[in-house]
């Protein structure tokens, strides 16, 4: 499969990339790791006339800790996330999630920025970013802005990104030390998107849940923030009744497609299983 023809650009800075995108208009596409875009180009479902590759922009790489806040450059790869000892120690769910994405070769090039910016409901990181209440930093020729992950996803492949925008970084506050978290993903095989998946982060104080975050992957047009399920957990000791309530409210917000991964009813059921397992794991991992 051979993609349509395009001109290839490799700007060296965010400013250069933004200027290029402003000049080239809506015929240009940004490419990060390329592992979502290039397959689409090979199928000619995407035929950009210009490809603006971010790989030479050093300021987009790297994972920084600024006090309680983490800043991950958009071009950090899934392999970079997995290899970061500090991230694995302070927010292990990021590594746990990255390890469930595709396979080693794909994780070597696939980036966190591309995963969250693409708007594909099958991508795993967006739900985690909803759970972490992350914000995305976005640059364009006119300046920069910040959009909360929870406001970013509008529909499948439609996000708050406009023509000319580059998502440059992901920021979030670390969950409290001693938190417990888990990402559970049911998939048919390595490299598949989730039949359903759930990200859960719990903070416990004296045996009572003081804070809960729950978000779901690939069971709707966008990643889903399960706020009502969080409310069912907070203030409880995360017993069976609370878990059952969270499971029921989480599954009630899903609207999965019936596809090769199963009928919608099955995928909704699996969502509940993933939510329950992730809550139980998160609970057992919390101090």
């Amino acid at each position: 499969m051979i993609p349509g023809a395009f001109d290839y650009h490799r700007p060296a800075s965010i400013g250069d990339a933004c200027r290029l995108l402003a000049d080239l208009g809506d015929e240009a596409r940004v490419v990060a790791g390329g592992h979502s875009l290039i397959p689409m180009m090979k199928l000619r479902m995407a035929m950009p006339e210009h490809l603006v590759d971010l790989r030479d922009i050093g300021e987009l790489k790297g994972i920084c800790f600024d006090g309680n806040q983490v800043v991950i450059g958009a071009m950090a790869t899934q392999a970079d996330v997995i290899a970061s000892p500090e991230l694995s120690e302070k927010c292990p769910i990021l590594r746990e999630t990255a390890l469930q994405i595709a396979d080693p070769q794909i994780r070597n090039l696939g980036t966190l920025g591309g995963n969250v910016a693409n708007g594909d409901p099958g991508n795993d990181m967006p739900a985690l970013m909803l759970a972490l209440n992350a914000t995305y930093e976005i640059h364009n020729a006119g300046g920069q802005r910040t959009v909360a992950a929870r406001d970013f996803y509008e529909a499948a492949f439609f996000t708050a990104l406009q023509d000319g925008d580059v998502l440059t970084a992901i920021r979030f506050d670390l969950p409290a030390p001693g938190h417990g978290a888990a990402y559970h993903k049911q998939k048919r095989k390595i490299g598949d998107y989730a039949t359903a998946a759930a990200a859960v982060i719990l903070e416990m104080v004296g045996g009572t849940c003081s804070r809960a975050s729950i978000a779901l992957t690939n069971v709707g047009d966008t990643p889903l923030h399960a706020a009502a399920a969080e409310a069912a957990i907070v203030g409880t000791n995360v017993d069976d009744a609370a878990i059952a309530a969270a499971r029921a409210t989480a599954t009630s917000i899903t609207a999965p497609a019936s596809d090769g991964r199963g009928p919608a009813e099955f995928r909704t059921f699996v969502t509940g299983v993933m939510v329950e397992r992730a809550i139980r794991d998160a609970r057992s991992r919390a101090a």
Partner: protein
Amino acid sequence: MSKSHIKMTINGRSVEALVEPRTLLIHFLREDQALTGPHIGCDTGHCGACTVDLDGKSVKSCMVFAAQADGSEITTIEGMAAPDGTLHALQEAFREHHGLQCGYCTPGMITRAYRLLQENPDPSVDEIRYGISGNLCRCTGYQNIVKAIQAAAETLSAPKEAAE
């Protein structure tokens, strides 16, 4: 559409070329460089038959444009054996342990295993299976591939231990 001028090192050899930006690395390797070891299997990034080593990382060369690999260092299956033709320990182990049947996945499998053993010289069976999860084999059932990689890991670590 203007062509891209690219330079890279492939199996230790410096290469320079003008390519259409839409040229995929696998096509550049196979058709321009006559390196037909990396195979096109699925052409969708799933099967791993096109795996090459790019700047010390395993990648699927059907999912990378040649222009993106400008300035990089690439090793393909053709770069595994010594210049005198002596097989790499992995190649020898795949032969010895019958780690292939039709052989279509083998170049990608060995190229991936090569990097896996650089990253983890003494992997467990589970780590090997996880490490090659991006490479599909439809013949062997993987048992002998895993055995071959284990055997190569032993061979590759043996001389170092003997020297210590």
